[in-house]
């Protein structure tokens, strides 16, 4: 896309026009229909579903959340009812969404991603996919997938062969070289790159020496991480030719504008929804006030 400053709020992405650049981040908005019930989909450009895996996953043992002084640790562990349940029972409900849906797909092996996508292909509810090679909360090493450009390439290629729909590959900020991984994903056929999943974080009870989260490390989100995400979005968007979706650190409309200016085509908001289910509408209002658009 061509850049202009201040950035336009109305976006062209994957061949469609989006009145809002705001996407609801995976794992923080269900499949979207929950927000429809709450009347909170105004201002939403697209919804990214929670992660879907081949088999159902119960998720990690509680506690799964811990709020630190300035952010949130989560250890959900890709809890989801599995792709078959999603296809049969959830996507039909999500068909009512007034905005596009992307399905976030996770896997425990290189081939699982494509397997899940292949099954989902029989639905026409969703616009495309977000391929999550970067969840920090699974033992099998989701994070490790994301740090090895070679594996990222193979995952992307597999998905690319399984669908004609566009898909974004969601990368990890935890180690490796995110630009190399992004380039590998594009080579494998990715239609966009999501920058990025949660940062590995930890909170230890100093009285006992134990982590407050059973799996010890967890995914950390905070509005204070915005500068880290801006830097990565800028680096990645300068290196690749497909669109970049930012994910992380948004708590106000100015943050969205900054990420767009840094090179993001669309901007996800996640943790902010915990405080404000109607965050997208608020962000849009704030952006319009700032830009006069």
């Amino acid at each position: 896309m061509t850049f202009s400053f201040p950035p336009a709020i109305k976006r062209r992405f994957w061949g469609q026009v989006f009145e809002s650049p705001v996407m609801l981040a995976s794992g923080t908005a269900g499949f979207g229909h929950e927000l429809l019930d709450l009347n909170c989909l105004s201002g939403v450009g697209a919804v990214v579903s929670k992660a879907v895996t081949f088999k159902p996953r119960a998720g990690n043992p509680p506690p799964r959340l811990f709020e630190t002084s300035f952010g949130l640790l989560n250890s959900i562990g890709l809890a989801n009812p599995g792709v078959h349940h999603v296809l049969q029972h959830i996507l039909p409900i999500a068909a009512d969404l007034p905005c596009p849906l992307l399905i976030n797909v996770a896997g425990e092996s290189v081939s699982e991603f494509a397997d899940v996508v292949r099954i989902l292909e029989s639905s026409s509810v969703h616009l495309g996919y977000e391929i999550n090679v970067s969840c920090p909360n699974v033992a099998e090493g989701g994070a490790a997938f994301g740090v090895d450009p070679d594996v990222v390439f193979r995952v992307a290629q597999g998905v690319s062969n399984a669908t004609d729909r566009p898909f974004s590959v969601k990368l990890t900020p935890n180690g490796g070289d995110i630009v190399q991984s992004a380039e590998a994903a594009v080579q494998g056929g990715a239609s966009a790159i999501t920058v990025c999943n949660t940062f590995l974080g930890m909170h230890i009870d100093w009285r006992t020496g134990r982590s407050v989260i059973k799996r010890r490390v967890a995914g950390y989100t905070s509005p204070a991480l915005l500068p880290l995400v801006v830097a990565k979005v800028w680096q990645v968007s300068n290196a690749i030719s497909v669109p970049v979706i930012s994910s992380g650190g948004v708590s106000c409309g100015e943050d969205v504008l900054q990420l767009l200016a840094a090179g993001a085509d669309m901007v996800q908001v996640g943790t902010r929804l915990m405080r404000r289910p109607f965050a997208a509408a608020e962000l849009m209002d704030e952006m319009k006030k700032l830009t006069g658009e």
Partner: protein
Amino acid sequence: MTAIRDYECAVKHSEEVLPGVMKVVFDCPEMSSVALPGQFVQIEPSPDTFPVTRRPITINCLTDSGFELLFDVIGRGTELMARMKQGDRVRVLGPLGNGWVVDPGSKWLLIGGGLGAAGFQFLMDSVESSRVLIGASTSDRVISLPASHVVTEDGSEGGQGLVTALISDELLGGADSIAVCGPVAMMEAVWNSIPEKYRDRVQISTESRMGCGWGVCDGCSIPMSGGGYKKCCKEGPVFSGIEIDWEAWKEAGL
């Protein structure tokens, strides 16, 4: 379509009713017309960026034009909430969760531990008859409820001892439904002291750290005896005692 909405409510009244325990009354006719006993709300503790999540509090009872909360001031979120004063406008999401399963005309036994009894008033207002047992560490932790039997660990109010000592076969047998709410350890002790034959009438109001409060983040899982988890915020907070995997839940800590 759910009745859940995010309201900006005015604080009508705020008061420290016991040391470190706040009663806050909100104006919100919409909420009071749809809420059920045992449901809760998610309160935004402050308009600032931090904390990044809301705080879940059970609806203690309805008022003419809104509802009342009763909460312990124990950490950052509730400390901010304790500063709310009349006229403040506060974001309140609700009503949330399933609430107690109330059959018309049923007789209830309510067993509360400390602030766990917050919410009993609403339930008592909604059922035909109820008897109430309350246990607390000390008199400063006793929520006053009509016609309740009270014990305290230090004997400063009611008898001395634990609430489990008040539980009798007669009380259990006379109830169609048994509601239990309090700290996890207390609820487990109560659960263990209830004979097998009465267990299917026991409802437990669970607690968990929460993200969203309305079912999308999967952060509030309660371990189920049949394996897997259920969401405290949406499928709970009230579960039948039999459903809960007590061992795993205790393990979780809070």
